[in-house]
C-alpha cells in the first residue's frame, strides 16, 4: 500500500515548466532559449482545416493519367484564386482549370488535386512569461519560469494574464455584482464565493480579465463556461470559502501580475487549472516532485466533512483504516489545530506544500 497522495500545489516560490502546444501540427513561432511574454504568439495552427478535392480530369474531360501530365502545380505550392492548375494543349480548344479559392496544394493523385483553403491560423499565446526551454515538434513549446503557484480545482477553459486585485476581505465573503465597477477593468479579481450568475455578466460588461473564486454552486457551471473571461475555482463546487492557504497567498498578492490558466482538470494528463505569479528566484530551483505523504506535509482535504480545510500530516497509517461508513482505505492522521486531529483517507488529501 502506497502513501502516494495527489498534489495540488500552493507554493510561494517554485520553478514551473509548462507546455503550451496545440493537439495537432501547426507552426512554432519562437525559438528555444527565447524569452516570451504572456502575449507572445508561440505557435499557430489551423484547428479546423478545410479542403477542396478538385477533379481535374473530369473538368478537362481527359483520362486521369492524362490529367496528371497536364498539372501545372506541385504538392506544397501555394495558389491564389484563379491560378492555373492544369491546362490542355492547343490554342483553339484549349481548356484551363483554375484554383477556385486560394490555398495550398496538399496532394496530387490520379488526376485530382487536394487543396487546403487559406484560413487565418489560430494563434496560441504564451500566457506564462518565461523562457522557451523546449520546442514540441510543430505543435508548441515548453516555457520555464520561477514564481508563485496556486493550483485550483476547476476552470472554465479560458486563460489570461493581468494584474491581481483583491476585493474580498475574507475567504468566505460572497462576491456580488455590486462590488464590480469600471475601476476594476482589466484586472484579475480574487473573491471568496460566488452565488449568482449576474456576477459573470457584470464581469464581462466591465471587461474584467479574470475571476479567481473559492467556490460556486454547480448550477452556475453552464453560465461560467459561457462567460467571456477565465473563471477559476480554488476549491470546487458548493458553498465553500476559499481554502486558507490559497486565500492567504492571493490576498497578499494585490497589484502583482499573474497568469491564469483556467483549463479544467484533465484526469488523464494530470494538468490542473492554476494561477502563476512570476517572481525572480535568488537561487536555483527545481519543480515540485511527486512524493509519498510524510509527517508535517501541508495538505488540503477535498471532501466533506473537512472539505477545503488545511491541515498537517501527523503520521501515515501503516494499514488501511476502516471508516464509520464501512469503507476501508489507506489513511493518514491529520492535525488541523493544536486540539483537533482526525483520520482521513489519503485519496481525499492533496499535498499543497
Amino acid at each position, binding site marked *: 500500500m502506497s502513501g502516494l497522495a495527489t498534489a495540488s500545489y500552493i507554493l510561494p516560490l517554485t520553478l514551473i515548466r509548462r507546455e503550451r502546444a496545440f493537439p495537432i501540427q501547426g507552426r512554432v513561432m519562437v525559438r528555444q532559449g527565447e524569452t516570451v511574454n504572456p502575449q507572445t504568439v508561440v505557435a499557430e495552427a489551423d484547428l479546423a*482545416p478545410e479542403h477542396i478535392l478538385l477533379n481535374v480530369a473530369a473538368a478537362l474531360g481527359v483520362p486521369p493519367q492524362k490529367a496528371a501530365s497536364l498539372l501545372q502545380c506541385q504538392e506544397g505550392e501555394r495558389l491564389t484564386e484563379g491560378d492555373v492548375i492544369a491546362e490542355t494543349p492547343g490554342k483553339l480548344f484549349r481548356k484551363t482549370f483554375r484554383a477556385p479559392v486560394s490555398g495550398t496544394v496538399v496532394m496530387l493523385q490520379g488526376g485530382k488535386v487536394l487543396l487546403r483553403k487559406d484560413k487565418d491560423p489560430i494563434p496560441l499565446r504564451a500566457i506564462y512569461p518565461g523562457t522557451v526551454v523546449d520546442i514540441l515538434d510543430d505543435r508548441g513549446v515548453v516555457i520555464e519560469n520561477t514564481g508563485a503557484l496556486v493550483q485550483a480545482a476547476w476552470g472554465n477553459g479560458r486563460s489570461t494574464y493581468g494584474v491581481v486585485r483583491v476585493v474580498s476581505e475574507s475567504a468566505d465573503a460572497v462576491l456580488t455584482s455590486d462590488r464590480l465597477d469600471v475601476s476594476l477593468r482589466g484586472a484579475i479579481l480574487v473573491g471568496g464565493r460566488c452565488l449568482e450568475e449576474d456576477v459573470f455578466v457584470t464581469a464581462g460588461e466591465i471587461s474584467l480579465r479574470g475571476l479567481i473564486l473559492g467556490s460556486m454552486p454547480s448550477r452556475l457551471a453552464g453560465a461560467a463556461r459561457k462567460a467571456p473571461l477565465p473563471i477559476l475555482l480554488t476549491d470546487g463546487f458548493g458553498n465553500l470559502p476559499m481554502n486558507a492557504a490559497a486565500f492567504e497567498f492571493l490576498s497578499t498578492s494585490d497589484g502583482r501580475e499573474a497568469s491564469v490558466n483556467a483549463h479544467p482538470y484533465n484526469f488523464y494528463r494530470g494538468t490542473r487549472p492554476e494561477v502563476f505569479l512570476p517572481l525572480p528566484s535568488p537561487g536555483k530551483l527545481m519543480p515540485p516532485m511527486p512524493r509519498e505523504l510524510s509527517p508535517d506535509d501541508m495538505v488540503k482535504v477535498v471532501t466533506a466533512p473537512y472539505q477545503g480545510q488545511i491541515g498537517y500530516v501527523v503520521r501515515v497509517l501503516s494499514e488501511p483504516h476502516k471508516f464509520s461508513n464501512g469503507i476501508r482505505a489507506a489513511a493518514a492522521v491529520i492535525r488541523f489545530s493544536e486540539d483537533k486531529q482526525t483520520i482521513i483517507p489519503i485519496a481525499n488529501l492533496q499535498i499543497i506544500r
Partner: protein
Amino acid sequence: MAAIETTSDSLLALDIGAITTRALFFDVVNGRYRFVAAGSAPTTASAPYHNVLEGAHMAIDDLQRITGRRLLADDSTVIIPAASPGEGVDGMVTTLSAGAPVKAIIIGLLEDVSVASARRLVESIPARLVDTFTLSDRRGVETRLDTLLRLRPHLVIVTGGTEQGASASISRLLEPLRLALRLMPQEERPQIVFAGNSALQERISAIFEDTAQVWLAPNVRPALDEEQIVAAHTILARALREHYIHSLNGLGELDTWSGGVTMPSVTAQGRMVRFLSLDDPSKGVLSMDLGASSATLTAAFQGHLYPAAYADLGLGPQAAGLTRGDPYALLLPWLTLPLEADAVRDYVFNKPLQPASIPLTAEETAIEYAMARYALRQATLRMLHGMYAQNERRAPESLPPVEPIIVTGSVFTQTANLGRTLLTALDGLQPTGITTILLDRYNLTTALGAAASLNPTLAVQAMDSTMFIRLALVVTPLSTARLGTPILKVQLTDNESGETIKGDVKQGGLAVLPLAPGRRGTLRLQPLYRTDIGLGAGHKAAYEVSGSALGIVIDARGRPLHLHKDMARRQEMYKKWLWHLGH
C-alpha cells in the same frame, strides 16, 4: 490420467486501473494453483509521473513486502523466470483499464445493418464514438476528410458488406480516410480495424498499406440476420493494446515483461466469463466491474459472450455521465437519504475533480452509491439492448437468469458494508431467477482471464469459489400480485443444527434468511399465486445451499424494480432493506 501440462508456474498479474494498479501473485500451493497475495499502488499514467511503470513498481514493491518474495531485480525489472525459491516469477500478464477512452469513428454501409453491429463492437471496449460515415451520409468527401482531421480518432472501424455482398461502395466510403491518413503525421494515425466483407480484406490492406496499421477481423455482420461481435472484439483488443502501448509511457516495457500478453480488462474478463459459462448450459454467467474509468459488463451463455464497456458510465472522470443532465433528477430514484438538491449536484460535479476521493459522511456515501446504482442500471439496460438487438421483440429490462454474478470495482470492494454492496448490485443489475452474488475483491476474474493465455491450468485451478467473498444466494420471485400480498413460502433448514426458519415473503419486500459461510442448508421455496422463481409459474423447488456472508436473500421487489413514487416512502423502504441486510 494424463499429466496436467503447464507452460508457466508462478504468475504475476498486473492490473492497471484508472486509479489503482494491482500486482497479483499466483503460485502452486499444495499441488494446486492458488491466488497468494495482492499488492497495490496508485496508477501513475498521468502527471506528475506520466509513466505507468512507476505505479507498477510500487504495486510490485507492496506485493514483495506482503509475500517476502523478491520480484524486482536491482535494475527494477521483474525477475522472470523464477531464479530460485522465493525469488522471481515464471510468467507475467498485464491487463489495462487506465488511459483515456479511445475516440472511435465508424465507416460502414448501412446504418441499421453493419453500422449497428459496429456500434456494438465499439461498445465492447472503453471508447467514445465521435462520428459515423455511412452511405446515406450527405457530407461530401472534403467535409468527411476535414472531420477526420479535426476529430483525430484513435480508432477507425470499417464495416460493411455481408459475405458475398457489396464491395465497390465500401471502397468509395474509404476515400476520405485514405486522404486523411496521408495528411496526418505518422504518430497521430489511427488504428484501423476492418470487420466487413472478408472478400475485401486484401483490397483494404492494399489501400492502407503505406499509411496505417490495418487489423483484419472477421465480418461483424456476415449476414443480414447474423452478427458476430466477439471474434472481431478479439482483434479490436489487439489494436487497442497497440494504441495504448504508443500512448501510455511504460506500458511497452510491461508488455515486454508480459511476453506480449497485455489486454484490455474487458477482454480478459470476457475470456473468464465465457469459460465459466460452459460449466452449466442452462444458465449464463455475468461479471460486472464498476470502476472509475468505465462500467464493464460481460455476460456469457453457453460460450456465447457479450462484452460491454461503457466509458461514459465510469464513476471517476465521467461521474457516470450525470453532469450532462440534472444529476439530482437522475439520482433521485436511487438516493437512500433525503438530501438537498444542490448538495447532490455539487457532489456529482466535484467527483471528476477528485475521481479517487472516498465518501465519508452519510450524505456523500448515499450519493456515491446512488451514482453506482444509476451507472449500473444504465449499463445493464444498454447491454440488454445490445444482446437483444438481433431479436424482433423488444429488449427486456431485466437480466436473463445467470449463475453466478461476479461483482467488482472499488465502490464495492473498498467497503466492509456487504449489505450495501449487495443492495447496490441488486438495484443496478436487477437479476432474475436464483443466483449467487460473488464479490471479487481483487479483480481476480480479469487477471485469470489474461493468465489463461499463458497458463490455462492456472486459470482453471485458481478460479475456485474460495477466491471470492460469497455475498448471498438471491432468489427473485416474480409475481403480478398486489404489493403486500404473500407470494412465496420459504423454509431454510441448517443441515448441521437442524434449526429451521420459515415464513412468507410478500410482494414488494426483501427478506433475509441467514446461513453463515461454511454452513450447508436446505432451502424450500413454494410459490403462491403462480409466482415464478425462474422455474416457471407456480413451480416449487428445494435446494441444497451453501452459506454466505448475507445468507439467502429473497428479493420480491419486482422486475423492473418497483420503487415507491413518494420520495419519503421510498427512502423509508431503502432504510428498511439496508437494515434487513445488516446495515
